[in-house]
């Protein structure tokens, strides 16, 4: 039971991370109608920035802040140089172009930081674990991740629902011509939105950097999980992304932790040993398939955004 609580918290933490990634993806897709395969690269860059700035400044907090700014700038520059030329293109062209960007970023990171990975040390205060309920200790830093992501989610909700920028974002999502006709600088708006998405991805990378090894290609597999989140949550819906991210995080983590054991009870030891890891890694995709059967547009289609 205690193990279950700990795994569930890990699931929530993964979910928060996925939310940060999926929110940026779904925002960019919902507003600019762009599929971005290089989104995982921005996550990777965020992690590299954080690790690098931590070495340069010696301060964890400064590293986080600088990495966020770095991701935002990279995102905006990327939008101006390349991404904006892909908006009017077919999804296939977007896939091809952003796939090229992914290859480029992986190689650029190898050129700049070298093929070996990096690590980011946490400040001592975050290395401890706290007792959250009697008998359950949980690392402080993972709690910080959960809280920080929740804060970002709340901020994002506020920005999209309550501010002028958010109003433009929502208007742009539903009617590109109208926003243009109102005389709003739609190019700038798109640059800002893409930068925001990049910063969210970068933030996810920053938060994850102290837990994982910072390495080339680290954004590739998690990007697909973020896609699963969007498929389940519904494209273009921030709310859907949040609910689905937590759900996917839980299923993925808890499934991997407990499914092999459950299989052991049902199947022979030998079969369970062979199939257990394979089947448990399928669980989240099975959930996705089930959602597709009953709700092909996802749980929260964009209309209810």
């Amino acid at each position: 039971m205690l193990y279950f609580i700990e795994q569930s918290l890990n699931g929530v933490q993964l979910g928060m991370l996925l939310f940060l990634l999926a929110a940026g993806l779904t925002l960019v897709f919902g507003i600019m109608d762009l599929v971005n395969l290089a989104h995982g690269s921005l996550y990777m860059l965020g992690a590299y920035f954080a690790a690098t700035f931590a070495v340069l400044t010696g301060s964890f907090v400064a590293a986080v802040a600088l990495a966020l700014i770095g991701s935002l700038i990279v995102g905006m520059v990327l939008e101006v140089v390349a991404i904006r030329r892909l908006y009017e293109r077919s999804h296939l062209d977007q896939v091809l172009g952003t796939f090229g960007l992914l290859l480029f970023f992986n190689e650029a990171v190898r050129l700049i930081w070298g093929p070996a990975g990096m690590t980011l040390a946490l400040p001592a205060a975050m290395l401890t674990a706290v007792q959250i309920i009697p008998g359950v200790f949980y690392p402080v830093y993972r709690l910080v991740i959960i809280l920080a992501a929740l804060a970002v989610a709340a901020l994002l909700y506020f920005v999209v629902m309550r501010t002028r920028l958010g109003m433009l974002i929502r208007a742009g999502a539903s009617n590109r011509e109208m926003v243009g006709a109102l005389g709003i600088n739609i190019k700038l708006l798109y640059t800002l939105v893409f930068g925001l998405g990049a910063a969210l991805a970068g933030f996810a990378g920053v938060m994850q950097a102290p837990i994982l090894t910072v390495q080339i290609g680290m954004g590739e597999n998690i990007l697909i999980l973020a896609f699963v989140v969007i498929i389940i949550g519904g494209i273009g819906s921030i709310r859907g992304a949040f609910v689905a991210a937590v759900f996917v995080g839980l299923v993925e983590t808890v499934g991997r932790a407990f499914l092999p054991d459950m299989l052991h009870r049902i199947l022979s030891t030998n079969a369970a040993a062979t199939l257990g890891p394979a089947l448990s890694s399928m669980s989240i995709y099975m959930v996705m398939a089930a959602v597709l059967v009953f709700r092909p547009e996802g749980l929260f289609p964009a209309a209810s955004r």
Partner: protein
Amino acid sequence: MSASLEQDTIGAGSDARWMASALVTIAVVAVLGLVPLYTTLTGNAFLLTLFTRVLILAIGAVSLNLIMGYGGMVSFGHAAYLGIGGYAVGILAKEGVGSGYIQWPVAVAASALYALVVGALSLRTRGVYFIMITLAFAQMIYYVAIGLDRYGGDDGLTIYQRSTFGGVVDLNNKTVFYYLCFAVLLAGIYLVSRIVNSRFGLVIQGARANERRMRAIGFPTFRYKLVCFVIAGALCGLAGALLANHTNFISPAMMHWTRSGDLIVMVVLGGLGTLFGPLIGALVFLLLEEGLSRLTEYPDLFLGPILLLVAIYAHGGIEGLLRGGRRG
């Protein structure tokens, strides 16, 4: 041969352009046919290995082109079939079944079955959803392969014995294997050429052009697209069986989603919806990769921007450039 085969493709330019495209195609096929002769004379075994790989991945690209180029279904999970076909061969070999007469049909059938399930789920959606769903299911197969500890898990599995065909063909002979791949590729292209001009093929292309209209004139487009999806999966599964025999090795890496990206690149680079485009695309992509990695330590630093430029400027790929046709 291409004169009658390419009559229906979209974006044909003037006759001169068309001639240029046909000449390039004939030249490429002729050169590929002569590769083993050259490598035997010069003893350059590496070149034969490289070109065998080109042929095998070209088969995968041809199958992807059937659904993506002609059918408009942008599947981002095509490497899964390479993996399923390859693992069918590898797992059977490890379990003591060495006969290609069993291995290869199993590879094709398993791929077709997977395509049937994924297609039935993903073809209910369209656009970006379809791209992401095919991507996600392929990732699932990737993780399943990692979980198969008995078959090497993350590290992969060495195949000690290539598929046997009762003495009819000896796959251990590299030249024989090369020509087998070449024959499968040409047969695959011929198959696609028949399909796209058949009743079935016209329905598929009609659904790409305007699916709503196709339903209004009385076609249940879903089932036609699904069958097309399964045919493409089966053909790519065969390519996977060839790939496992070529490398004598299978691993999850062969179906990482970026490999699916490579196949998409080949198809687009060569020219969507053209018969020989995928072959030319595979050839150019793999030679480019090979050439760049000889010139520089950081090949993708150049390859990436090239792909971006192709996406932005070179509509219609190499075939399109040759023909002067543009398409959206």
